[in-house]
């Protein structure tokens, strides 16, 4: 009888730690490290140069949380090189941002989830008239 009681007590004690684990780990989502702040600043500065290209439809939001040159004809020939450089720099920042947020939360494996969350939210927050890519790769105007 005593042994059964002892086992029950041990079993209950053993269950305690992992029951309390889940809510504590899921409660907060961290995104305020110096690296993330720097990325936001750099992307904010670049946005003033990109905005006219979103409006003209030259650049669209891709379904994987990046941006792409959708219609090169909407960009004057002289400006194409600088627009391409802007797109490359922006995508580098975005990729780093998703990785940094995952790392800030100590879950590097969340990078994919964070990317898909962002890709949906970029499109939701896009202004009317901007172009975005659907899951099948086709472009659509908002």
């Amino acid at each position, binding site marked *: 009888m005593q042994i059964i009681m002892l*086992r029950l007590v*041990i079993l209950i004690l053993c269950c305690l730690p992992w029951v309390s*684990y889940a809510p504590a780990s899921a409660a907060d989502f961290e995104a305020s490290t110096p690296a993330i702040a720097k990325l936001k600043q750099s992307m*904010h500065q670049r*946005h003033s140069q990109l905005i006219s290209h979103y409006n003209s439809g030259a650049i669209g939001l891709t379904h994987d949380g990046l941006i792409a040159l959708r219609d090169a004809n909407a960009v004057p020939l002289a400006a194409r090189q600088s627009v391409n450089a802007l797109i490359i720099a922006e995508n580098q920042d975005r990729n780093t941002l998703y990785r940094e947020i995952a790392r800030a939360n100590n879950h590097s494996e969340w990078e994919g989830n*964070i990317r898909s*969350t962002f890709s949906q939210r970029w499109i939701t*927050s896009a202004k009317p008239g901007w172009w975005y890519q659907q899951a099948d790769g086709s472009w659509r105007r908002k």
Partner: protein
Amino acid sequence: MIKTYLSLISLLTINILLSSCVTINIYFPAAAAEKVADKIIEEVWQTDEEADTEETDKNNP
């Protein structure tokens, strides 16, 4: 006596295994991530005009 120790050890092993499973498969907090994403997007896409308007609104409520 040995039997009790054995069951104790097996219970501890199960506990460690369960704990590690929970830790590894902890679900992605989608709602919290969306909020963070919205905040970052708002900051990144905020134009200077919008920032000025907000500033003015704050000064003249």
